[in-house]
Structure formats: structure tokens, C-alpha cells
């Protein structure tokens, strides 16, 4: 019997080793490469010093990498089962943060759990992907457009998005809404619904402008439209970011030589505007390398989704990719003055533990889907619970 135990253990180990071997290491390498670009930039903006950003970010990445692989090894069916509980918990935390949350930069975003600081809105990004994927897993293409299916799906998105908007955190709310709607779209939402809704949204923009947006949000839009009107005030960030990017030219000013960032003309250089630092120091060349890496990551993600047997797995994989894509689009567009300033980090590059862990958590799920791509989850399983 003791031998049996030993065999049993080795069997499990063998299974784990098999999963590890099956893991898409190319994706892991691509993620690590992007993070390394981030470390270099954080080292540069700190005046060629590991303190105070690069060293901490590297530790977080180490933790995050282990977490990601750990998550990848967990059977995707577990995540299927945990989808609703995680969503429920996240929703509770989002409600709680309204009452006991700590304010950072004018928005209530943080909650303290012992020594841990938690941003429920970040957790929700993962939770929504899981919950929505699980819900849609049980819905046939023809049924997606039915109100009985569509309304619960929209509620899954709308509840957390509304709470996040209350904080107020426009950027995250946008990612939740667009990412969530993306999943419904992928699940096969009828064009007969999509087109009228798009038209309706276009019509609703002026109304939303008047009644929904807060003054500071409106201000961001105003200054975006004409940053030079107030070059030292609210338009400063956009103007300085464009100057930094443009002055980088083809190959940049060199590592650690970015005058705009080193001399503090660039605000929030280690977080929201780190894309600009890359452009200033490494030029168009550096930006294209990063965009290439991002594209490769997304390519891998899409390939995983298309190679997965369960609709749940496919939707989770695409959900993670969509979130990742939205981060990239919003941050780079903002840095280049294409959209108003929104506090969204450049994924895997910007300084910040929570965002990094969230993204790595997401990639963990993506890898879990990849490792367990052959696993079949019956459609009827979604109906349970």
C-alpha cells in the first residue's frame, strides 16, 4: 500500500510535469520580454536606479509569474466551477469598497484587508470574464440574442460596471463594458441587435456628456480636444507626452537620456506615461518592438482560443486577450494624444503591482485554457447552479 501511495504521487507529478511541458512557453517568454522592457524603463526614469520602481516591480513579476503558472496548472473545470463564486465575491467587495474604501487620486478604489491592499475593480476584470464565459457557455448561438439570455448577460456586465463608475473609475468601467460586450459579440450576438445598438450609443453620446460625465471627466475631454489651449494647466500632460514621443525620432535619445522624463516634464512617467518614455528613449524603433511583442502575445492568445474545445475556454481566452488589448489601445492612444487622458496603465510595462498581478492572473487563465484545451465541458454543466 505504501508503494501505491508512492505511485499515486508520481502519477500526479507526472501529470503536472506533462502540463508544464505542454504549457505555451513562447507566450511566457513573450510576457517576460515585455516585462523586461518595463524594468529597463523603470530603471531609466528613476535616474538609472533600481530604486524605487524597478526592483519592486521585478519582485512582483517574480511572484506574478509563479502565480500565473500555478493558475495555468489548475484544471479549467475548476475555474468553470469557481466562476460564479469569484464573481459574487468581487461584487460584494465592490459594494464594500463604497463604504470602507480608501481614496487614491480622487477616486475610491482601494480596500484594506489586513496587510493586503485590494482593488476590487481589478479583481472584477477577471471575475467578469469567468462569470460571463460560464454563462455564455450554456447559451447556443441562436439563443444569445434572446432577451432571456441577453438581459442576464448584460446584468452581469452592468452591475459591476455601474459600481466601478460610481467610484468613479471611468477607465476600468470602460474595460468591463467593452470587454464584456466583446464576449457577447463573440458568442454570436445577432447583427440585428448590434447595429441598432451602435447607432443608439452614437445618439446617446451627447446625452451622456450632459448628464453622466463628472466635471473632471469633461475637462479631460476638453483639454484633449485642444491641449495647447492650456499648455501649463490641464493640457500639460498631453502636450508634454507628444513632445517626448516626437522628439525621440526614429531611434530615440538613448537609454536614460530622455530629457522629458528625466527632467520631470513628463508627468506620471513611471505609470500612465511609460509608453512615452519608451518612445523618447528608443524612438519609433522601440515602440514598434513593443507593439510587435504585444501583437505576438495577442496572436498566441487568439490561437489558443481557436484551438480550444470548450466554449468556456474559448471565451475566457478571448476575454483575457480583449482586456489586454483594451489596456494597450487606451494607454497608447492616450500617450499619443488620440484620446483624452485616462488613468489606464500600459500592461506589463507600467509600474504598479495590482495591475501587473491582474494581467498575469488573466494570462494564467489563458494558459490554463491552453493546457486544458482538449477538455470538454458539457453545455448542460452551465445550467447547474
Amino acid at each position, binding site marked *: 500500500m505504501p508503494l501505491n501511495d508512492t505511485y499515486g504521487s508520481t502519477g500526479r507529478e507526472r501529470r503536472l510535469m506533462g502540463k508544464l511541458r505542454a504549457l505555451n512557453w513562447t507566450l511566457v517568454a513573450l510576457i517576460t520580454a515585455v516585462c523586461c522592457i518595463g524594468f529597463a524603463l523603470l530603471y531609466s526614469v528613476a535616474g538609472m536606479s533600481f530604486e524605487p520602481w524597478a526592483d519592486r516591480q521585478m519582485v512582483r513579476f517574480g511572484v506574478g509569474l509563479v502565480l500565473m503558472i500555478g493558475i495555468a496548472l489548475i484544471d479549467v473545470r475548476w475555474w468553470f466551477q469557481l466562476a460564479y463564486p469569484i464573481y459574487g465575491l468581487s461584487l460584494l467587495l465592490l459594494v464594500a469598497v463604497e463604504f470602507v474604501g480608501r481614496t487614491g487620486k480622487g477616486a475610491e478604489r482601494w480596500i484594506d484587508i489586513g496587510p493586503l491592499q485590494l482593488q476590487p475593480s481589478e479583481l472584477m476584470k477577471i471575475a467578469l470574464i469567468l462569470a460571463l464565459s460560464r454563462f455564455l457557455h450554456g447559451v*447556443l*448561438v441562436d439563443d444569445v440574442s434572446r432577451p432571456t439570455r441577453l438581459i442576464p448577460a448584460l446584468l452581469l456586465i452592468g452591475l459591476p460596471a455601474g459600481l466601478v463608475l460610481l467610484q468613479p473609475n471611468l477607465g476600468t468601467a470602460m474595460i468591463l463594458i467593452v470587454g464584456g460586450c*466583446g464576449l457577447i*459579440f*463573440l*458568442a*454570436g450576438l445577432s447583427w440585428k441587435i448590434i447595429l441598432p445598438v451602435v447607432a443608439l450609443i452614437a445618439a446617446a453620446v451627447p446625452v451622456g456628456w450632459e448628464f453622466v460625465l463628472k466635471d473632471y471627466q469633461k475637462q479631460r475631454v476638453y483639454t484633449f480636444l485642444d491641449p495647447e489651449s492650456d499648455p501649463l494647466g490641464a493640457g500639460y500632460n498631453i502636450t*508634454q507626452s*507628444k*513632445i*517626448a*514621443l*516626437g*522628439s*525621440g*525620432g*526614429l531611434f530615440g535619445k538613448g537609454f536614460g537620456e530622455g*530629457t*522629458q522624463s528625466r*527632467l*520631470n*516634464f513628463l508627468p506620471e512617467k513611471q505609470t500612465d506615461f511609460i509608453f512615452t518614455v519608451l*518612445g523618447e528613449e528608443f*524612438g*519609433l524603433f522601440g*515602440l*514598434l518592438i513593443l*507593439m510587435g511583442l504585444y*501583437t505576438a502575445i*495577442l496572436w498566441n492568445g*487568439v490561437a489558443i*482560443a*481557436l484551438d480550444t474545445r470548450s*466554449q468556456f475556454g*474559448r*471565451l475566457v481566452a*478571448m476575454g483575457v486577450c*480583449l482586456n489586454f*488589448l483594451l489596456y494597450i*489601445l487606451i494607454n*497608447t*492612444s492616450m500617450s*499619443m494624444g*488620440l484620446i483624452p487622458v485616462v488613468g489606464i496603465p500600459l500592461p506589463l510595462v507600467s509600474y504598479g503591482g495590482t495591475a501587473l498581478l491582474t494581467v498575469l492572473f488573466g494570462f494564467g487563465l489563458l494558459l490554463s485554457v491552453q493546457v486544458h484545451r482538449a477538455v470538454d465541458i458539457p*453545455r448542460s454543466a452551465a445550467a447547474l447552479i
Partner: protein
Amino acid sequence: MSDGRESVRYRAFSRRTAILSSGTLGLFTLLTGRMFQLSVLQREQFAMLAEDNRVNLQLIAPHRGRVYDRMGTELANTTPNNRVLLVPEQAKDLRAVLGQLSQLIPLSPQRIERILRDALRSKAFNPVLVAEGLRWEEFARVNINAPDLPGVETDQGELRSYPFGSWLSHVLGYVAGVTDKDIEKEPELLSLPGFRIGRSGVEKAADDALRGKAGAARVEVNAHGRVIRELGKREGTPGQDVVLSLDMEVQKIAQEKLAGQSGSVVVMDVNTGEIISIVSAPGFDPNAFTGTVSSAIWKQLNEDELKPLLNKAITGMYPPGSTYKPVIALAALASGAMTPRDRVHCTGSRVLGNHVFHCWKRGGHGSMDMHLAIKNSCDSYFYECARRAGIDAIAAMSHKFGLGQTYGLEIPGEKAGLMPDPAWKKRARNDVWRDGDTFNVGIGQGAVLTTPLQLCVMAARLANGGKAIIPHVIRSFGGVDRQLAVPTDMGLNPEHVAVVHSGMDAVTNQGGTGARSHIDIDGFDMAGKTGTAQVRKLTAGLRGRNSDSIPWKFRDHGLFIAFAPVVAPRYAISVVVEHGGGGSKAAAPIAKEVMTVVAQRDPARQKLFVPPMRTASGPVGKA
């Protein structure tokens, strides 16, 4: 995949994924285009803006030149000045920053208001001066806290300092802040915060030389305007050091002897016109003017009866009184109207028409020739002397001696005085010239007005036998001697000069009016001429009263001119003591003391002082 509906779902999913991916690709292409637009198409524009952000051109204020006396004593120099400046544009909330500063350095609420007003007036990117002359600890405190004080800058400028204070106030003048009008003339340098320029005296006259040329530094600044490093630097040219002809020791003794009185002393080298000493008493402390003058000090200086702000040596105008008599004598001799041996009988008064002209000696001097008349300062003799010479000859001779004109001295503000003649009287008073006017001029009264500087020039030209020396106070700029024109000859007859010299010799050395001020140094005997200038017409009630019993401001001015040695004179002096009573009592003794020191030092024979070289760097300010 047995379930057909599953495969439908998969196909729908992959189709939608393809659509989404193409959309993403399109967006990425758009982003790449934007990157290309910014960093390739608009690169130059943004590169220029980035450079604009980072590089500031700052002027480097040149060192101001020092001022020395002829022996190399420092009369004006600069001391390090720890300053705190504030750039309004960067501070944003000025009041808050000043509030923080006031906890580090002493800043009164009034001063803060003043700074706020200054900030409002100047351009937002120009720093305004918050405090200067800070002690090292205060300065260090600000420097340590500077990163938390937006817009606050510190630098080490220089502060003008005058080691001898009030003893040289009228010679050196002072430096003070610039006005908007000055800035128009030289906007760059003069816009430097706290920059000061010469406002009076040599500081003003030699300002161009003393000021130097500004250097410039290209510096890298951060977003808060703080200088990170220097990129390049063009050294300025330090101001030239200026050496004066003054001898500080002579200046000191003259000051001491005038202490408590209002008056002036001018000592000159009779061969070159170099001024050895020029004193106007009382003086003021020019150090008080380099900062902001407190209104209390200003009020006090303005209301002082002794007028410390006036440079009496060049702006005080006095009737020359009897010191003028040598010129009258030379005018009469030159015109041929009189010979040295012609005698005039003095009875103590002389009647002209219905007017009586008195001699200062009640009983009269009896029979006087020219030598005796100068020695005893006989008024009756000089009434006659002036009458015979006539006003035109007197005026001509006076002009030769430099009366009624200015000399372009390097101390601004000279007054020309007045040498009256018939044309002047017609012009100024619309009246004809009368003999009585000539009588008055004959004893240096009436309309004749002279400055102490003019009296000294007159004495010097008498002493050197008629060389028209021009007075000056600056010997060299930046170690290079000034080139001076050879003085023209006034065309005096040496025999006539000898007569006057012997008369003046007798004044101090043969029991004349200045006998008490005889100098007992071998080879440095002094010849002089006393003078007393009436401040107002004496009323019957005041005549003959002891001068001590008359109110101060109605007392006569005491005057004295002299030269030494008698044979081959080298130095001339003029002394004026306002309301000091007679010249023999008030002025001559001062001349004796001063000339004794001159004799001991003999400044004209000392080696020429050449100032040392200096380096160019100075405090940095923002352009």
C-alpha cells in the same frame, strides 16, 4: 464534436474572432501611423520643443570692479551675498511659498507684501528677490528645503561694500537697484534680479567700466525650473578696477578736522590736477543705500540742518570772499591798471556816491601796496584795485582761473558757480553794471559764487604759475593710466605771479591774517589766503557782535585757500567751513593740519598702484 450545434457555435466564434482580430490589426496600424507621424514627420518640431523645455539661457552677472585709492587701499569692494529668489511662474501660490520661507528666514509681513507687489510687476518667469545678505545658517536652511519650495532659487550674488562708509560717501557715491527706464537701455543684464548700478559719485561716472560685461550660461532645467546642470558657459568680463588719485590718509584727516561741522576740503596736486582729497562734511553711509534705504534713515538725512546728502565740495556755492583777492590783483596787474608798488591809503572805509564801502579793519590799514594788501587782506586796496582793473578784466582773469565753469570731474553734479559781468547783470537782473558792483566783486562778495573745488583749482593754478590744470579723481581704469592732456598755459606774467605768491607767503609766514596756521616744516611752508563770506547783509544790530552769539545759520562762512611749498609748489588746498566765522579762525587751521599730513606722505611722489587681475565668474541669474 458530435454535437452539430457545438460546431455551429465554433464556426460563429471563429468568424467573430476573425472580425475582431482584423479590427485589432486595423487599430494597430492606425497607432503605428500615429507613431510614425509623431516621431518621424513632426520630429523636428517636437525635438525643438523638447530642447526649449530643457535649455535655459542664463546671464552671469560680472563682478563689479573695485575702487582703490592711489596707495592701493580698497575703497569699494564686493562681499558675497547669499540670496533667495522666487520665480512667480513656478511658485504658483506665492503667498503659501513665502509663508513657508518665513519659517526659515526672517521675513516681515510688510516685506512679504512688498515681494508680492514686485512679483506682480515683473514678468512671471523673472525671479524676484526675496531676501539677501543672509547668514550662512539661514542660507543653508533654505537650500536644504528648496526641493519642497516650488519656484525658490538660491544664489550667491555680490553686495557692494564701502569699508570707509561716510568718509567717502560723496566721492564714491553708491549703487542701487535699476529702474524700468534703465532696463529699457540694457534689458538683458539689468533685468538680473538684484542687479545694481552706480547711482552717484564715481560709481555712477565710472559705471560702464566698473560694471563689466555679462557672461552667459546654457543650463539644463527640470520641469520646475531648477537648474540640473550647466551645458555651456561663456565667461563675462569682470568690471575694471578703478584707482583714484585720492590718498585715504589725507581724506581721513580732512574728515576728522571737519567733524561736527558743515564744510568741505579739497586737496590737489597743482602740477597734474589730481585730487588728493575731496571731502564734504558731514557724509552719509553709502552702505545703507545698496539695499533698500529705510525711510527713517532717509528722513533723517533729508532733514539734517548740516545737509549730509549734499556734496558741498562740488555743489556748494559760496562767495569766495577775500580768497578771491589774488585773482583781482593779477587782473589789475595784467591789465596794466596797477603796478605792484602802487599804494592805496586805507582809512577803514571808502565812499562811492551815497554808499559807504567798509574795510574789515575799523581803523583802516593805512598805506598799502599789493604785497601788504594781500597779507592783511585790505578791502580798501582791493576796492580801488578792482575799480582800476574794471569788471571785464576781472571776469577774463577769473575765467582763466576756472571760475564760473565745470570741469567734467568724475563725480557727477558739479555746479558752475557764477562769475558776474555786465552782460550777466543785464540778462539776470535787467540792470546796468555799476561801480559798486565792481567794488563788491573786488572783495569776493556780491554776485560772485564759487564751489570749494573751484577755489582749489584757483589756488592750484595760482601755485603752478598759470598752468590750466583740470581736476580729476580717477588715475587708472583696469590698471591702465588715463591719458591726460598737457595743461594749457594761461599766459600769466611770472613777475606778477611772484608778487601774489609773496603776498600769500606773508599771510601765513610773516604775521598776516593766517599767521596762526603757519606750517613749521622745512621746505614745506604754506602760502595761503583767508576769506570770510557774508551769509547775509549785516544789520547794525549784529555788526561787531561776537560771532558765537549770532544764530548758527546767520554766521559767516570761513574760507581758506593755500599751496605748499611756497617755492616750487606741489599741493593746493581749499577749505570752506559753513557758518564757521572768519576764515583765519575756522578754515586756515584745518588747512594747516591737512597739509601737514600731505607733507608727511607726499602722495605725488609715491609709486603708482596697479590693481591685481581677477577672474570672470560671477553669480548666475536668469535671463
